């Protein structure tokens, strides 16, 4: 008790010291912090003193001119006293520590909490609050504390922590994405339906970016199956006049069902199983039969219909059936957001099957000029891929001068995107056609290569 009094005075004595140094009365301090004068008096002078929230401490720090985190190392005693834990004070404290990077305070608090396994739920709550407020990176260590210390691998907080870790890391880079999939996927079926539907969708998408087609297929199958089970359960409930129990997913149920077909179809296409791909593309082309469609869901049905149409064109282009090209071009004209991926497909197909695309390039010349302005990471990579295919096309038809100019643009873009695979490919292409290069093109090439070699 005496130690606790000493420690409490330490936190409060620091506040008192600063009050004296600044010459603030309680009234003035109340005005500066926005803390009710009665509350302030109870906090500083009460017997026993009223507990200080971390929000109070932050306001006091600001009033004294200190940065966030002032006296945080002393705060645990407000919430971790003599075998008692105050969750309403501890949880916001840990959340704030994570937000401002006070790892020292987190480590000190966590080592005390983990003396008792029941306290893992506190760390889980902190992790969830951080995750849901968009602070995914900050939430990761707390999910890791839960996973490392929770003995029951079927417990809700363990399984959700595994899922959140996967979502927190998702989209970092291919190596981290792959590790995240391997770590999380054994637990995916232990999730409740609402989490599981989103989990399967994200697993399939990540495997798509990793080009792991068999895995995309597997998760797409599970996604369709689970979505249909949920759908049929809900229809049965409605038929029997029972209340709705639709899981609370991030997207309408139709998205999981439709994407289950879409992802299956694209996986099959990328594995060269074109007839099967066509069958699954038809599966999401018209989902208007789906009941439970509100306005948002109906908009998703329409998007899926358009993607089915676009992907049927893509499938035809992949197999050299270029008679669909005019319809595909009309589609792209009507849906400008699809022009970039569409042109990558068309250029690849032109290079593979040897058909002319001058009229296509002319038709979309304004769109192509705008590709340079795209800032999104995916669009930049697609632009790079388009430029590369364009370069290959130009060299095939013998337009060396334009081909070399575009190679130089491709080099600049691949360097900026840190895509060294494409940078090397462009070096190779330029080198191969060096004898056609003008002095100016050679000089530009030399400059680009010199700049890159300085960065190695």
């Amino acid at each position, binding site marked *: 008790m005496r130690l606790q009094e000493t420690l409490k005075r330490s936190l409060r004595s620091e506040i008192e010291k600063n009050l004296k140094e600044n010459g603030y009365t309680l009234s003035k301090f109340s005005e500066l912090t926005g803390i009710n004068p009665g509350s302030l008096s109870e906090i500083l002078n009460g017997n026993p003193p009223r507990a200080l929230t971390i929000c109070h401490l932050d306001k006091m720090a600001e009033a004294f001119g200190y940065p966030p985190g002032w006296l945080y190392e002393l705060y645990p005693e407000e919430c971790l006293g003599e075998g008692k834990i105050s969750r309403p004070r501890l949880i916001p404290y840990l959340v704030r520590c994570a937000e401002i990077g006070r790892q020292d305070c987190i480590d000190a608090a966590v080592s005390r909490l983990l003396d008792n396994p029941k306290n893992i739920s506190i760390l889980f709550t902190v992790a969830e609050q951080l995750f849901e407020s968009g602070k995914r990176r900050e939430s990761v260590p707390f999910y890791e504390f839960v996973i490392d210390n929770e003995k029951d691998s079927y417990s809700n907080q363990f399984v959700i922590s595994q899922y959140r870790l996967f979502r927190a890391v998702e989209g970092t880079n291919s190596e981290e994405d792959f590790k995240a999939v391997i770590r999380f996927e054994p637990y995916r079926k232990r999730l409740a339906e609402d989490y599981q539907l989103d989990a399967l969708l994200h697993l399939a*998408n990540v495997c798509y970016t990793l080009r792991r087609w068999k895995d995309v297929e597997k998760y797409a199958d599970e996604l369709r199956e689970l979505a249909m089970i949920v759908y049929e359960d809900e229809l049965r409930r409605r038929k029997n006049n029972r209340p709705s129990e639709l899981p609370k997913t991030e997207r309408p149920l139709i998205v999981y069902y439709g994407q289950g077909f879409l992802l299956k179809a694209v996986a099959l296409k990328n594995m060269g199983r074109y007839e099967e791909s066509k069958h699954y593309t038809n599966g999401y082309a018209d989902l208007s039969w789906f009941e439970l469609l509100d306005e948002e869901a109906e908009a998703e049905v329409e998007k899926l219909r358009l993607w089915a149409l676009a992907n049927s064109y893509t499938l035809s282009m992949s197999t050299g059936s270029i008679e669909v090209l005019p319809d595909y071009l009309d589609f792209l004209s009507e849906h400008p957001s699809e022009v970039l991926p569409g042109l990558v497909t068309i250029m690849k197909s032109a290079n593979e099957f040897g058909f002319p695309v001058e009229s296509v390039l002319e038709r979309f010349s304004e769109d192509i000029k705008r590709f340079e302005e795209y800032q999104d990471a995916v669009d930049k990579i697609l632009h790079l891929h388009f430029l590369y295919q364009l370069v290959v096309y130009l060299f095939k038809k013998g337009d060396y001068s334009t081909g070399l100019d575009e190679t130089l643009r491709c080099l600049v873009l691949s360097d900026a995107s840190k895509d060294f695979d494409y940078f090397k490919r462009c070096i190779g292409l330029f080198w191969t056609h060096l004898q056609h290069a003008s002095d100016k093109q050679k000089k530009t090439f030399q400059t680009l290569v010199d700049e890159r070699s300085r960065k190695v």
Partner: protein
Amino acid sequence: MKSFILSVCLVLGLGIGINGVSGEVTIKKPPTVIQYDHGVGK
């Protein structure tokens, strides 16, 4: 010409980092988010 060839050779070694401690050679992978198929990830 020699400096040109040297530069190209240096650049062709791009993306290869050498761990100075163990001497291990690692290949850095570029980010892969390639979508030619419509509707994926949307």
